[in-house]
């Protein structure tokens, strides 16, 4: 090749960022475009389970084997994203013995390390398990933070020369002479980091090859190129608990079913999930019964959940795919395996490849296979190194005590920070002094927020995903304005204000699904703080300076010499001024 091939990867989820990293490490020229934040699609809307493969050990053994293999790879290369929680498949009296045995055998068949525990032994591991749980299979499930994982992949891709553009939606796939030659994108706020209020712009990216890694959205990109990609998006609900009722992944040991998993995730537990096919990956109903189902069903495994506080719920869409000829009617029957669609071979449209199906646990393997495919196409001999080279942050284990001593952080704050930042702990936390904690729920300090702002611009949701700030029980009630203030004075006040408004709305969207009991009380407090105390809802600044200041009380103090005092009783007409 005369020059390095340029590849455009569409989609900033785990697969897209994984592909970008892999290709960039092999020396290709890569541009990644994502219409929202990194993880904006499915990756950011999952329960964070790093599969042991146990879930698929009966129904889908190929997936199960891939999972267990990748599970151990990610523990190495993404140690700062993975919490080695272990997992249990828990059998209740009404669950069949036969299926328990089938699960056990399936795991063994797929080389998933297992151990059988009695009910009492299981409760020793997880004291809040129901007292009538019979027994359990222990598996090497783990928890993974998909946000940090994607951000680390993207960071490393950039280190290897890739360009990463978020908030850049593909508006067209450019086809010339029967071949894909590029994409047209619309930048939400111009190229580079997102900055609220910056004008949008469009850009043509000419490229040697397009990789469509948009998951549930793959059909849309396909359509822009004029090909059919038959993804079958399937929605699932996840409910976030306020605290960790379990520290181990708890699965229910029964055949496919809704509401059968509890994943400890950072400070919380995530309950999952449901599986219902939807027509549109963005427009689908989010319903009360789904949340209620999770709580009611999973309380059978962990009774404490029935009364525990939830802080929000969210829905994600699985990018399921099966070749049209299979014709499954129930989405739970569709394989979790991934498919590489070579549009040259399949649709006579060279220049583009789609990757569909699959799951976060196997993202790296999927990326490797598509990178192999692309390299093969361009005759690049470099081989995949992503299974061996750690992601940024996982190069070596940060020493917790150091962080605490050196940066004056309280020990749980230091611990959580260093778990998020991994080997970057020192360089991030040393950047500002004093370093107050801005988000006490999640123990996020100013330094960590500033680091995320450097990466993400005024996109506070991207800051949130990087740091977890505002993801705790107050859901931004006490911290959103503090986080936003870190943008100032780098960004001007109206920009900061817009960014804050966007974060507040995003938090509210998910919190609405948790509005009863303690979280309703929390939400009412947040509303009171932001509306009553701060008057953000009737902010005169939004009225473009249209306030009749003189109509209001200016105080009862004597007018000083020169008469610069404000309005007094005599001056007010008592009428309704304001705007």
């Amino acid at each position: 090749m005369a020059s390095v091939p340029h590849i455009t990867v569409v989609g900033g989820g785990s697969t897209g960022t994984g592909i970008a990293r892999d290709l960039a490490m092999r020396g290709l020229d890569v541009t990644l475009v994502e219409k929202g934040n990194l993880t904006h699609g499915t990756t950011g809307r999952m329960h964070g389970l790093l599969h042991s493969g146990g879930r698929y050990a009966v129904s889908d053994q190929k997936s199960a084997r891939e999972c267990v293999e990748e599970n151990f790879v990610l523990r190495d290369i993404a140690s700062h994203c993975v919490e080695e929680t272990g997992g249990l498949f828990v059998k209740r009296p009404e669950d069949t013995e036969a299926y328990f045995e089938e699960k056990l055998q399936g795991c063994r068949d797929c080389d998933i390390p297992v151990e059988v525990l009695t009910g009492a032994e299981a409760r020793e591991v997880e004291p809040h398990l129901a007292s009538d749980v019979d027994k359990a299979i222990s598996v090497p499930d783990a928890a993974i933070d998909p946000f940090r994982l994607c951000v680390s992949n993207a960071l490393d891709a950039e280190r290897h020369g890739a360009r990463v553009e978020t908030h850049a939606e593909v508006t067209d796939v450019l086809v010339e002479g029967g071949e894909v030659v590029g994409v047209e994108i619309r930048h939400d706020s111009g190229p580079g980091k997102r900055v609220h209020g910056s004008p949008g712009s469009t850009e043509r990216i000419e490229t040697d090859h397009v990789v469509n890694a948009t998951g549930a959205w793959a059909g849309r990109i396909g359509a822009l190129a004029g090909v059919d990609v038959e993804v079958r998006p399937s929605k699932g609900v996840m409910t976030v608990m306020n605290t960790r009722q379990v520290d181990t992944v708890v699965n229910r040991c029964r055949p496919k079913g809704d509401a059968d998993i509890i994943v400890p995730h950072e400070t919380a537990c995530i309950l999952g999930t449901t599986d219902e096919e939807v027509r549109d990956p963005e427009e689908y109903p989010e319903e009360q019964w789904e949340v209620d189902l999770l709580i009611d069903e999973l309380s059978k495994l962990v009774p404490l959940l029935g009364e525990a506080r939830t802080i929000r719920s969210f829905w994600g869409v699985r990018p399921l795919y099966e070749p049209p000829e299979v014709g499954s009617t129930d989405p739970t029957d569709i394989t979790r395996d991934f498919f590489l669609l070579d549009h040259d071979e399949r649709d006579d449209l060279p220049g583009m490849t789609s990757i569909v199906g699959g799951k976060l646990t196997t993202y790296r393997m999927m990326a490797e296979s598509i990178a192999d495919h692309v390299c093969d196409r361009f005759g690049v001999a470099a081989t995949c190194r992503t299974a061996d080279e750690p992601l940024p942050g996982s190069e070596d284990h940060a020493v917790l005590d150091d962080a605490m001593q050196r940066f004056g952080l309280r020990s749980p704050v230091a611990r959580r920070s260093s778990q998020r930042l991994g080997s970057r702990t020192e360089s991030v936390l040393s950047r500002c002094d004093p370093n107050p904690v801005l988000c006490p729920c999640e123990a996020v300090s100013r330094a960590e927020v500033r680091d995320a702002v450097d990466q993400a611009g005024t996109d506070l949701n991207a800051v949130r995903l990087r740091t977890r700030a505002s993801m705790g029980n107050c859901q931004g009630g006490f911290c959103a304005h503090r986080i936003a203030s870190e943008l100032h004075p780098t960004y001007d006040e109206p920009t900061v204000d817009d960014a804050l408004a966007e974060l507040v709305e995003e938090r509210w969207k998910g919190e609405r699904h948790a509005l009863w009991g303690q979280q309703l009380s929390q939400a009412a407090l947040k509303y009171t703080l932001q509306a009553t105390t701060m008057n953000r809802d009737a902010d005169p600044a939004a009225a473009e300076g249209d306030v009749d200041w003189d109509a209001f009380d200016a105080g009862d103090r004597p007018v000083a010499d020169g008469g610069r005092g404000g309005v007094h009783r005599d001056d007010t007409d008592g009428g309704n001024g304001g705007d």
Partner: protein
Amino acid sequence: MSTPSEPPEDTTAAGASDDDWTYVFGEHGDLVGESDLRPGADSCYKCSSCDTSCPVAEVDDDFPGPKFQGPEQWRLKRQDDTDIDPSVMDCSNCMRCDSACPSGVPLSQMHNTARAEYVAEHLSKTSVEYWRNRVLANYGTLARIGSKVPRLTNFVMGSRLTRFLNDRLFGITGEREFPEFATETFRSWWDDRGGDEESRRRARQVRERRADSDPNDPKRVAYFHGDYSNVNTPEVAKAMVRVFESYGYEVAVPDQRCSGTPMFANGMLDDARRAAKFNVETFHALVEDGYDVVCSCTSCSMALRQEYPELFDFEGTDTVAAHTYEALEYLRVHESVREDVAAADADFPDLAYHAPCHARNQGLDRQAVELFGDLDGVAVDDVGDSCSGISGTYGWKTEHYDVSMAIGEEMFEHMEGVEGETGMTECPTCAMQMEHGTGYEIRHPLELLEAALVE
């Protein structure tokens, strides 16, 4: 947990036997790590009311406040985490955060448990700090030994040399004078007087005289006097007995151990567990026989009512809690003490009253002032709602002495700002602080009640 068998103890406080000290060398129990208090964080909505009520956070910025120590630290915790921020040792266990929290977060329970974990995991068992805390926490044991030879003990503990050595070598502040031991303990007075039997006789006499009681329907209370009123202020305990007998109550004074308050505050939960077990067993048996439990110290009633059920689950713990009262409180809700006090007068000096934090936590912080507001002959002024700052053993530690006095400053000023030049409070350590800061003599509400109601 392999609890060593309880030593036999006779009524002359021979419990200060070697057995008590063998506990000190005993192993750590299994309570630490048992309790998962993370669910308690569900109630927190971050309003910070606890922080603004914290007397330590107000004067010491190394202490981050109860919100961090409690719900935040617990929520951030994972099962296998062992690190507890060392600042939990700066908490004085005044428990004001409990009464501030509008959401029912079990703050003091979180602090007590975290502190116990910290002591178990991080405080070296060979450190001077550990032993100093252990000794302070087991004041009762020390006191029982000392009270046998009160004059000698008073002489030794009062000596400047002892205080100097305590401060330098042991971290017990030399600024304070050790409380004097009474020449006769309450328990020996009680025994000389004829014990429970004599009280039964006297109470029956009263019931026969009083129109509002049935001589054959015994009213019974079991008195939890705690260590301090036994060995240091027996006049308070005697006042309690006389007042209750004047209402026709038969008072029982069973064997008992320290309530555990100083042990909770020092993270010595195993010591506390042993003491609590003994107390619960003893008083549960009495409650089953129709007794209510009455305390003259608000920290003792707090321990029996709140801390025991939060931290332990011996049989009868909840029952004892449900039948435990502070002395004045008991009379307010069982007897016509409001009317009786209003009709009485007392020859007593005017008083500057301080409500102990632990009284506040039981909703009892204003009862004394309200009750005695109607009493002729004595003016009782509330000196405000600040904390005295001593919080039991806290203010005895050299490293906390300055903080303790800084917290107490507000109370001292208010005491000096009111008429009375005698102090009054329910809590023995608050009394020490009040005396230390102002030089006033400090009395107990039961003494005033005795003056008003008992001929």
